[in-house]
C-alpha cells in the first residue's frame, strides 16, 4: 500500500485520533492551571510553604509518565485503558510545573504596584485578579507553553497501554513495519504542539496589551 492510499483509507481514524490527542493534551493543561493558580498563590504568600511546594513539585516530576499511567488505575480504581488515567497524570505534571511558575510570576509584580493598588482601595482578592495576575501573565504564559508542548509529547506514551491518540499510529506502524502511520503521527503531534504553543503565545499577548512586542523567548 502506498502512503497516499493509506492516508486516504484511514483519514477518518486519523481525524479521530487527532481529536483524542488534542483533548488529552488540552484538558490537563486547563485542569493543571486551575489547580496551580491557588497553590501558586499560597506558595507565593508563605515563605515556609514555597520551598515545600517547590520540592514536592520536583518530586512529582521525577515519576516517569509511563509508570504513572500504570500506577494510577490501582490508586483510582480505574481500568488501565481508561483515558482518565492520562488526563489525571498530565494534570498532576502540569500542576507541578505551574505551581512554581505562578508563585514566581506573582513574586515578580513590583511592590509599588501592589502598594498603589492597596492605596486605591483594592481588597486582596480584587487586587489579585485585577492587578497581580494580569501582570504575572507573561511568566505564567511562558510556563504554560512549556507544559503544553511537553504534554503533547507525553500523551503519545499512552499508546503503549492502548489508550487511543496519535501514538496509536506509532504502535500500528511499528507492528506492520510501515513508516507512513508513524511519520503521520509524528508530524501531526508536532503540528498540534506548534499550534498550541502559538495560541498560548497569542493569548498571552492579547491579555497584556501594555507589554512591548518583543520576539518570543
Amino acid at each position, binding site marked *: 500500500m502506498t502512503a497516499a492510499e493509506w492516508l486516504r483509507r484511514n483519514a477518518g481514524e486519523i481525524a479521530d485520533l487527532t481529536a483524542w490527542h488534542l483533548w488529552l493534551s488540552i484538558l490537563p493543561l486547563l485542569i493543571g492551571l486551575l489547580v496551580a493558580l491557588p497553590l501558586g498563590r499560597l506558595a*507565593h504568600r508563605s*515563605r515556609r510553604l*514555597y*520551598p515545600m511546594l517547590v520540592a514536592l513539585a*520536583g*518530586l512529582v*516530576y*521525577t*515519576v*516517569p*509518565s*509511563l*509508570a*504513572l499511567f*500504570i*500506577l494510577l*488505575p*490501582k490508586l483510582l480504581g480505574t481500568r*488501565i485503558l481508561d483515558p482518565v488515567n492520562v488526563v489525571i497524570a498530565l494534570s498532576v505534571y502540569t500542576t507541578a510545573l505551574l505551581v*512554581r511558575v505562578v*508563585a*514566581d*510570576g506573582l*513574586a*515578580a509584580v513590583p511592590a509599588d504596584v501592589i502598594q498603589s493598588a492597596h492605596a486605591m482601595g483594592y481588597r486582596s482578592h480584587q487586587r489579585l485578579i485585577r492587578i497581580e495576575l494580569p501582570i504575572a501573565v507573561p*511568566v505564567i504564559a511562558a510556563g504554560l507553553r*512549556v507544559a503544553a*508542548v*511537553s504534554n*503533547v*509529547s507525553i500523551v*503519545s*506514551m499512552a*499508546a*503503549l*497501554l492502548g489508550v487511543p491518540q*496519535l*501514538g496509536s*499510529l*506509532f504502535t500500528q*506502524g*511499528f507492528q506492520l*513495519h510501515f*513508516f507512513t502511520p*508513524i*511519520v503521520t*503521527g*509524528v508530524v501531526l*503531534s*508536532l503540528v498540534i*504542539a*506548534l499550534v498550541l*504553543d502559538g495560541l498560548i503565545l497569542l493569548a498571552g499577548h492579547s491579555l497584556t496589551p501594555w507589554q512591548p512586542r518583543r520576539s518570543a*523567548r
Partner: protein
Amino acid sequence: MSTSITGWLTDPVNWSGPDGIPAQTLAHLELSGMALTIALVIGVPVGLLIGHTGRGAFLVGGLANALRALPTLGVLMIAVLLITPHIASDLAFTIPSLIVLVLLAVPPILTNTYAGVFAVDAAAVDAARGMGWRGRDILLRVQLPCALPLILSGIRAAALQIIATATVAAYVSLGGLGRFLIDGLAQSDYAQMAGGAILVAALALAVELLLLGLARLLVSPGLTRRVSRRTSPPAVPASATATATAQ
C-alpha cells in the same frame, strides 16, 4: 497472575537470573549511563562555548523547544525500522534507543549550561580579566564554577528524562526495567506492570537524590545563591536572577 504488587516485588524468583530485577536495573542504568555520557560530551562543551562567546544563542532556544515537542516513541520506532535492516545484532535496537535518549538529554544540558554561563555576574568576569586572565582561564575557573548550579540542574533534568524514557526501549525488545511493564502488559499481569512501574519511579528518585547530593558536594560554598534563594522570597528565572546577583 493473581499475585499482588507487593507479592510480585518480594517474590525471590523475580530477584534472580538474567531477567530478574537486579539484572534489568543494571541494564536500565547501563543504557541510561551511556546516553547521559554522550549527551554530556555534546551538550556541556557546546553550551560553554555559546555562553562564553555569546554566539549562536538564538539557535539554542529554538532547537531546545523544537526537540521538546518531538514524540519520543514515534522517533524511536522510525529509528529502529530504519536501522534494523542494516544491522543484525542487538545494536539494531541499542543504537536507535541511544539516539533518541541523547536527543532528549542534550537540550536541557545545553540550554542550562549556556544560560548558566551567560548569567554569571559580569563583575566577576571583569575582575578576572582585570587580574590578567584570558578567555580559557576565565571560562574554566570563573564562569564554569559560577554556572555549576544551573549546569547540574540541567544534567539532573536530562538524567530523569533518560531514565523515564529508557523504559520505552523495552517495547523495541531491549532490556531494562521497561521489560516488566511491557511483558506485564502482554501477559495482562498487572502486578508485574505495577511492580516494574514502582521500580522505575524508585530508580528515578534515587538518581535524583544522588545528583542533588553530588551538586551539594561540587558547588563552591562561596556561591550562596542556592541557599539564599531558598530563604529569601523567590526571584523570577533568568533575567531576575541576573539582577539579583548584580545588586
